[in-house]
């Protein structure tokens, strides 16, 4: 790659890194300056159909905690001690005015803490319309799609009220097309991770993906297209690293430094990091009834996570499939501290990996952790032992 190409990639990655690490949501504030009176909808993890607010001219933005960038003070007085960090830090952002640009906040009740947290938002932020989007847990039910279409229609009503105008089917179709493009580009990015992981580090890929939840998706598409165009020319040597799948990043996000520790010893060739942005695994049809298409895609054309029950997608088997399809040598099975669904799934995952004879390393993390020496030693020992076995 030419020096200018490398500089351009580096500049894009730096821009993404700033977005990821700045708790003041700079891209959102820029968008509001460019769109006076523009409304913003925030949504908590894991999945939210951003096409709905986008079709109304709102800016959807993902609320996914604050890592170690914010000292949690106010939220600690509102929420019990044994609740995960992402619930607290997201509330801290709201209570300290860092999310004052939001008109609507939506929480899918992904876990018991998240469902409770919405009530805390309602009590403490009376001027914000805080809604629960109830996504089906009986996902294989033949009735779930009709229910979900109507639930999306309800959320569309909330959005229409916020912006003061109706959402049209044509507007939704245009938004679906835009997000289809985004999901295609993300699939391409993950293809690079699987096939040529030395061209893009785990931290680089992650910041590129995460930035999508923090900026207008039109801009994200431009940025992804540019990076994907430049990557094949990148000069990077393939290294002798084990190929791993990282599991455990569906909700609370591991610190960038933790991913850096892993990437020093391993290629992360697939993962569930921010799986909500990649939840829909194929294109959503742009003909027909748009909300029905989005509902069907959520149920029938989607990935998996600890917070959705679907007998068609047994999670341990889905993990084994992810490992197989990415030709990974091993798995890193992580879970955030105090994460009930993640920690419970972890045991089933470990059993399935043991039964399949797949080496794995179990890690626990917290978004705000800052010391990684112990983890570095564990990861290096794990990787070296496997390299020794493979030799």
């Amino acid at each position: 790659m030419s020096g200018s190409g490398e500089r351009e990639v580096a500049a894009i990655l730096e821009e993404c890194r700033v977005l990821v690490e700045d708790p003041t949501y700079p891209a959102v504030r820029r968008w509001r300056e460019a769109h006076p009176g523009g409304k913003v909808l925030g949504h908590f993890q894991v999945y939210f159909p951003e096409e709905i607010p986008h079709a109304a001219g709102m800016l959807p933005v993902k609320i996914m905690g604050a890592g170690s960038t914010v000292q949690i003070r106010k939220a600690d007085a509102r929420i019990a001690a044994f609740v995960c960090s992402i619930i607290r830090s997201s509330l801290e952002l709201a209570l300290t005015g860092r999310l004052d640009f939001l008109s609507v906040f939506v929480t899918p009740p992904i876990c018991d803490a998240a469902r409770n947290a919405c009530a805390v938002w309602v009590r403490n932020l009376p001027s914000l319309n805080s809604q629960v989007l109830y996504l089906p847990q009986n996902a294989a039910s033949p009735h779930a799609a009709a229910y979900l279409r109507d639930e999306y229609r309800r959320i569309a009503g909330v959005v229409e009220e916020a912006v003061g105008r109706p959402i049209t089917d044509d507007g939704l179709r245009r938004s679906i097309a835009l997000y289809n493009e985004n999901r295609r580009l993300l699939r391409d990015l993950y293809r690079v991770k699987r096939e040529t992981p030395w061209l893009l580090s785990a931290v680089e890929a992650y910041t590129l993906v995460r930035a999508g939840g923090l900026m207008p998706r039109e801009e994200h598409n431009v940025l992804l297209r540019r990076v994907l165009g430049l990557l094949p020319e990148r000069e990077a040597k393939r290294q002798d690293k084990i190929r791993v799948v990282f599991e455990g990043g569906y909700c609370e996000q591991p610190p960038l430094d933790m991913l850096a520790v892993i990437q020093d010893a391993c290629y992360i060739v697939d993962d569930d990091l921010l799986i909500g942005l990649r939840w829909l695994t194929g294109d959503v049809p742009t003909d027909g009834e748009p909300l029905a298409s989005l509902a069907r895609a959520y149920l029938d054309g989607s990935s998996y996570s600890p917070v959705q029950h679907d007998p068609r997608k047994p999670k341990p088997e889905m993990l084994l499939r992810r490992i197989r399809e990415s030709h990974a040598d091993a798995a890193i099975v992580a879970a955030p501290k105090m994460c009930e669904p993640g920690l419970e799934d972890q045991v089933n995952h470990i059993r399935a990996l043991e039964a399949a004879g797949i080496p794995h390393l179990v890690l626990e993390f917290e978004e705000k952790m800052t010391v990684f020496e112990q983890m570095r030693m564990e990861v290096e020992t794990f990787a070296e032992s496997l390299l020794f076995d493979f030799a």
Partner: protein
Amino acid sequence: MTTKTPTIGSIRNESRRLLEQWWREMAAADHAGRPTAYVFVMGSLGELLRAFDLPVNCPEITSLQTAVRGASLQYLQAAEDSGYSPDICGYVKADVGLHLKDRQHPNGRIPKPALVIATNMCNTYVTWAEIWEQMYGCPVFVLDLPAWRGTRAGAGADGEALRNDRRYVEAQLRDLIALCEDLTGTAFDIDRLREAMAQVNRMAASYHAVLALNQHRPAPFSAIREGITFQGISNLYRGSPEGTRFFELAREEIQDRIRLGMGTLEEKYRLLLAGTTCYAALKRFAEMFEQWGGVFVHSTYMVFAGGGFAPGFAYDLARPIESLAETLLLSAWRGWSMPMFYAQDWLAETVREWSVDGICFHGVKSCRTTSTGLPDVREWLRTRCDIPGLFIQSDLVDPRLWSDAQLKNRIDAFIESLAGRRATAGR
């Protein structure tokens, strides 16, 4: 004129008999290899399962019983040794430990699950059910009960959104009926469902009357001692004539207690419990308040885990399945919003109606469903309604999380503050 025989003692005797009978039925089902359904207390669907003669295991109850029997630690440790984190629900771990120990419980042996029904009333129900799914390969039916939706979504849900939810719940119930028919080989008999629902209507009326009797001063029963028994029977015997009879008997006994001037103790402070108690220290938890004359006259637990029996609960027996769907949905709305997530209004109203002096908010590490927002609700009620509240933390079943001296200090200080308020108000 005949004098009615006082019924004092019948709650204790009859509840003991019913609990022992439940264990005998489970042991018999295990011995005979009869299909057993595993259900949870919030949305157990006991009335529907009775129409198929399916025995039920309530794992929340078997887990809490390990703690009451002082045996939970061995089960928790067995689960932790097999990989479960110290940071997850203790009920789940006590149950996993039970299965790892060949299903041998201090009260008997539980049968394997042939069917699991889990509602979304607690998300952990679903991941817990998936553990049995992995262990036994049994079918797991997750019943979605979409409920409270946030801003401006009070307990009085209505409109198109509620109609959508109701259609979905009813359709799922029809699927569950088909699944039960397949599993048991028994054709669904709507009259049997209707019969069980009629029993639930009677049980709900008596349950609600029992709770209301505790508005009397002094309180005729403790919401955390006998309250637990009431919750257990209401779940295990939902839809049965024996369950209905129990609550009629309970109502009579409590009326007798009032008539005879019997309170639970020398009542000085009337308290409300937000959350659950600690089963690993059930007696001690109560004693710490009772030594100061503090009696729990009500609890949120008796509402959200007490069969969903809100005031006015009544199935329409002319259209059983539709009514079951509607009532389950509305119970979920009430269960989530009123006493649990968005509890401030219900708590404030209960403080007024039950003449409560203060609220104990008990957060348990095991249960984020009941505990996550408790500090916030406490603060809300303190600052907006001048209702005193104590926030303490321990666990449901894990004795390692019970810190006696620390809890005693907090409770003593809280009671002193109530005394101070009373003295100030009396000046």
